[in-house]
Each structure stands twice: as C-alpha cells, then as structure tokens.
C-alpha cells in the first residue's frame, strides 16, 4: 500500500469511528435530558446539522466540477441552492413549526382535509427523493471507485452496500451531534485544500477573495487577475470565456435558478428539520444559521472550480499552444491521472499518435480548423467526468497526501449523511403515511418498522441500479429531484398557508398537474425512469420549450401547479370553517406546542 492509500484508509476509518462513537455516546448518555419536551434543539446546532443533512454529494463532490467547466453558467447552482433558504425561512418554516406535525404529507393531509391529498403528496415525495438518491449514488460511486481504485460500477455496488448498513443500522438517524461532526469533517475537507490552492495561485488565503485577486505564477505576480488569466488560457484552446459562459440561454438560467430555489423549499428532509426547534422564532433563526453554514462551502466553491480548471489546463498544456513541446507527454502524465484512468471516469485517446495529450474544444469549428494546422486530430481527453474534479483537485495541485485523504472522507460524509436522511424520508412516507396513515391503521409498531426497512432497501436498490446510468452528473441529477419537489410540494405548502381559500380539489389537481408535466418533460429528454434509449418524441429540438432544459423545468411545473390550483379552487367549494380557522391559527406563533423529538419525527 502506498503512502496515500494508508492516509486515506486511516482518515476515512477515523471519521467513521468518530460518527459511530458519537452516536453511541449520545444514545447512552441521557438523550432525554437534551431533548426534554419543549426544549428541542438550539437553532445554531440545528442550523449546522441541517447544513450537513442538506449538503450532499451534489454540493460537495459535483458542484465545483460543474462550475469548473460551465464557469458563470453554473451560478444557477450557487444561487439556487442558497436562495431557496430565503423562501424556506420566509414562507414555510415558521408556519410549519407552528402547525407541529411530524411529516410533510401529514400537514398536507390535514390542511386539505383529504386522504387523497396525502397520498398524492407521498407519491410526489417519493419520486423527488428517489431521484435525489440516484444523484447521491453517482457521487458515492465516484468516491469509492477512486478510493478503492476500481471501476465506477464496482465503486457504486460497494457504496450501495455501505449506505444500506449505514441507513438501516440507523447510526446516523437524527442524532444531531453526529451531523454536527459530519459538518465539521466536510467543511474542513472542503476549505483546507481551497486555502492551500488559493495561497498557491494568488497568495491570498481566503478563497472568496483569492478568486478576485491577481494571479501569481511560480511565485511571481503576473499582473493579471486570476479570472482574466483563466479566461485567456481556456480561450486559447477554443473554449468559451469562463466569466460569461452561459448554461443554455438567459431564460434557461432564470428557470434553472428558480427551480432549484423552489425545490430547496419543497424538499421534505429539509423541511422536517424545522419541525423540531423549540419555538417559532427559533425556526426563523434556524434557517438563517443553516444558510450561514452552507454559505461557507458555497462561497468557496467558485474558487475551487475556477482554480481546479486553471490547474488542470496548466497540467496538460505545459507550453504555448501549437508548439511541438507545448503539450504534456502521455508517458509523463502524473500519478493522479493514472489513478483516475482506472476508474474509467478519465479517458485519453491518442488520436494523432504523437504520444502527447491535446486537450481543446474541437466543437469550436474555427479553433478545430486551426488545431488541424498544429497536427492535432481532435480533443484527446475523450472523457473528463465533471464529478471527479473536487476529489482530484488536491492531487492536481500537488497538495500533501493527508489533504487528499481528508477530501475523500469529506465527500463520503456528505454523500452518506444525505443519502441516509433521504432514505429515512422515503421509508417513513411509505410506512407511516401510506401504510399506517391510510391503508392499515391498525398495523403493529413492529410491522411498521419492518415495512420501513423493506422500503429503504427497495429504494437503495432502485436508486443504485438507476445510478449505473445516471441521467447526468450528480448535481444535474439532483437538480431534477429539486424540479420534481418544486413542481409539486412547495406550491401546496405555500398556498396552504397564504391562501385561505385554497381547497382540497385545487391542491390535488395542482400537485398532480405540476409533477406530471415536469416528469413527462424530463422523461421525454432523459428516458423513462432515466433508462437510456427510452426517450420519446425526439423528433423535436432537444430543449424545445423556449430553450428550457429538463433540469430547469421544475420552475415551469411549479407555475402550472400554482395556476391550476388557484383556478380549480375558485371553481369549487371553499374549505370548511374549521380549516379556515386552522390557517388563521398557523399564521400566528402564539400557542405553538412543544417540539417533537427529532428522532421521533424521523421515525414517523
């Protein structure tokens, strides 16, 4: 075993031991003392745990890679996944805390006085959560394949096994302290390499400022800003300008951001956290604290992305573009390059047989013509999976081995904690809302628990198998999940609080139409259940609806949901008196009951 493997095994092992140790300690010591009825969890602690719960493989492993290759265009992820907290804090969190139930479908079932509404909410929740887990599986597969030096598929199978043990044993279940530990591991793992790299490239230790600082080349100030340098380096190879490159058109970026924001505020495993703070006013602050802890990673990510891209380009393009010795010799490729080749996520093909690596944009016709003049026969980096960038970044920047090991541990913490949280949301929706709530109210507690285990195992298998051919990079797949949540759950919750006249028929038709339209659009482009080859109506332009991509379509679905719900509710009878009184009551904090115990909330 080489030095890096030893480091990786020890750091990953040590962090796992830490989580399990905390879980055991928190259970053995008097948990009740900590959560006595009505005391709940402190808003700062809850904010940190929410941040760990929420930041997943998409945020940790995938997002900076997408920023690296989409530049400005990837801003949709940054704004979308943070701006959603504003909606959550202002429009939902305090009211749902006041309402004081355990699950999101429970709120919908009660507010809309309808079991049918509850069932529709459960279906929407399962669709969104399973899609979300597929995204996590992609991230876990990438992390394990690199960590164990195997192919992506094998990494994914091993990941499935570990998630299964993790979630079913329940070591992670709702233990706030464990999540705080996970947050610390993942945020250190993210920021330490970023600080090193920022110091290296700009001399400024704060990545947030480093990205806007001057570029330092081999210890000498270049007189250019880092972003200008990056723009120059990639445009010389025919790529689009980093700081203005868009993802689709302006409308697509608008819709994409909106879809992620609304989705953030509609995802059940996040909402549930605000049910458990002591008071309504704490629910307001708690969302703010969660965003502070999330923002530490989110404001660092743009620097990680830009700097990773610059380092990657400089590794391969070692001299002036077009000169004989300007490109790295394949046999001189660094160690990390070889390791990622074994995973199949990085692939090189010597198209012109010169033994050197040419990495450029051969889709750019002008530049491709010019490249032919250099004797280049096409881009030879035939596969650079975006999801490897964060994990490869410290190696590309030649950071010490313990930093690289820490990043692997951080990525696993992010992916596993979120996957476990989502699986709990799925299993509780099936066992508590569907089985106990609707079909078999007299089910025994033991049978309910068994049902939830079976549901969890089923979700892991489905998500894992679909993760073999994920519909996109981890962050892209997760974006679809947000679109599904945006188009179904958020409008029903918001209207339930802000529109007293909203009735059961309106809410049901709204949710059903919103999610159906979104799902059909996604399946049309990405295949039914994301299975390749089952796309339909492909005669049409790929993004035919005003250039809005499937990942961004949740925004349109949400608008349809709102419109249908408002129209249908006005054409049908008003909700009964007691429901209108309930809405009035939810709107004021006074009289909020004690917070449910978080693990009780998750068990339900």
């Amino acid at each position, binding site marked *: 075993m080489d030095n890096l493997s030893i480091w990786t095994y020890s750091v990953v092992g040590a962090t796992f031991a830490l989580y399990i140790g905390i879980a055991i300690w928190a259970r053995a010591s008097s948990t009740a003392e900590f959560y006595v009825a009505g005391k709940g969890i402190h808003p700062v602690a809850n904010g940190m745990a929410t941040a760990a719960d929420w930041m997943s493989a998409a945020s940790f492993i995938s997002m900076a890679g997408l920023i690296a290759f989409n530049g400005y265009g990837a801003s949709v992820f940054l704004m979308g996944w943070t701006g959603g907290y504003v909606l959550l804090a202002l429009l939902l969190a305090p009211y749902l805390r006041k309402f004081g139930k355990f699950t999101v479908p429970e709120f919908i079932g009660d507010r809309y006085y309808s079991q049918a509404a509850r069932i529709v909410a459960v279906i929407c929740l399962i669709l969104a959560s399973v899609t979300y887990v597929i995204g996590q599986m992609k991230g876990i597969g990438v992390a394990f394949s690199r960590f164990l030096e195997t192919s992506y598929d094998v990494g994914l199978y091993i990941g499935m096994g570990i998630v299964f043990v993790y979630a079913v044993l329940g070591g992670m279940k709702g233990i706030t302290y464990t999540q705080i530990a996970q947050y610390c591991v993942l945020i250190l793992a993210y920021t330490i390499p970023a600080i090193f790299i920022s110091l290296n490239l700009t001399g400024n230790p704060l990545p*947030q400022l480093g990205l806007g600082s001057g570029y330092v080349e081999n210890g000498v100030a270049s007189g250019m800003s880092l972003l200008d340098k990056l723009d120059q380096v990639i445009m010389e190879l025919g790529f689009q300008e980093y700081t203005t490159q868009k993802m689709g058109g302006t409308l697509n970026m*608008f819709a994409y951001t909106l879809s992620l924001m609304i989705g953030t505020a509609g995802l059940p495993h996040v909402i549930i956290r605000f049910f458990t703070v002591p008071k309504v006013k704490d629910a307001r602050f708690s969302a703010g604290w969660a965003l502070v802890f999330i923002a530490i990673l989110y404001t660092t990510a743009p620097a990680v992305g830009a700097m990773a891209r610059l380092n990657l380009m400089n590794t391969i393009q070692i001299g002036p573009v077009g000169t004989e010795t300007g490109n790295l010799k394949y046999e001189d490729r660094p160690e990390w390059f070889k390791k990622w080749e074994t995973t199949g996520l990085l692939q090189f093909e010597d198209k012109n047989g010169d033994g050197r690596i040419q990495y450029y944009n051969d889709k750019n016709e002008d530049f491709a013509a010019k490249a032919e003049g250099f004797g280049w026969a096409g881009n030879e980096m035939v596969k650079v999976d975006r999801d490897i960038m964060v994990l490869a970044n410290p190696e590309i920047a030649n950071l010490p081995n313990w930093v690289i090991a820490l990043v692997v541990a951080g990525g696993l913490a992010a992916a596993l904690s979120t996957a476990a949280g989502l699986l709990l949301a799925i299993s509780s929706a099936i066992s508590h809302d569907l089985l106990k709530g609707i079909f078999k109210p007299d089910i025994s507690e033991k049978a309910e628990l068994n049902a939830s285990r079976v549901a969890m195992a089923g979700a892991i298998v489905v998500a894992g198998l679909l993760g073999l051919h994920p519909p996109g990079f981890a962050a892209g797949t997760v974006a679809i999940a947000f679109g599904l949540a945006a188009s179904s759950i958020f409008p029903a919750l918001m209207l339930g609080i802000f529109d007293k006249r909203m009735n059961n028929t309106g809410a049901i038709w709204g949710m059903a139409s919103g999610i159906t339209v979104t799902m059909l659009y996604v399946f049309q482009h990405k295949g039914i259940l994301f299975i390749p080859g089952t796309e339909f109506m492909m005669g049409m332009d790929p993004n035919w609806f005003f250039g809005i991509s499937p990942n961004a379509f949740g925004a349109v679905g949400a608008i349809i949901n709102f419109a249908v719900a408002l129209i249908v509710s006005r054409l049908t009878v008003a909700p009964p008196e007691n429901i209108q009184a309930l809405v009035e009551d939810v709107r*004021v904090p006074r009289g909020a009951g004690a917070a449910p115990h978080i693990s009780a909330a998750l068990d339900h």
Partner: protein
Amino acid sequence: MTPENRAAYWKANLGLLAILLTIWFIVSYGFGILLAPMLNSFSLGGYPLGFWFAQQGSIYVFMVLIFVYAYRMNTLDKQFGVDEE
C-alpha cells in the same frame, strides 16, 4: 386577539415579505442573471461585477435577508402580543 388585530399583524407580515423578496429577486435574478452582462463592465477587485453577484454577492445578501426577517418578525410578534410566552 381581535380579528382586526390579527389582520393588521398579517398585513405587516406580508409587507415585510414583499420588501425582502423584492431584494431577494433583484440581487439574484436581476444583478446575477438579467443585468449581469451590463454589470460585468464594472469590476470589484478582480471580479467582473455581474459575475460576482452571481457567484458571491447574492449569497451574502440572502443570509442578511433571513436574519433581518427573523429580527423584524420577532419584534412584530411582541408588538401585536402574539409571541410565544
């Protein structure tokens, strides 16, 4: 609590939401997306301004918005006597 009082509280709440959500919209969709190409002709340190809003600035503003909301609402609760004892 009288129905009038209740209505006034809700109205004050909605007024606050309108202001905060307008700012929320302007910094992200406005400065970060729609107006970004124009703002990019200005720079903030080594950042083009529109790019900065999209990848840094809007996130800082979001944090401030939530804390302002929490403080204002807690004050309103007390003012209207609907806070939790």
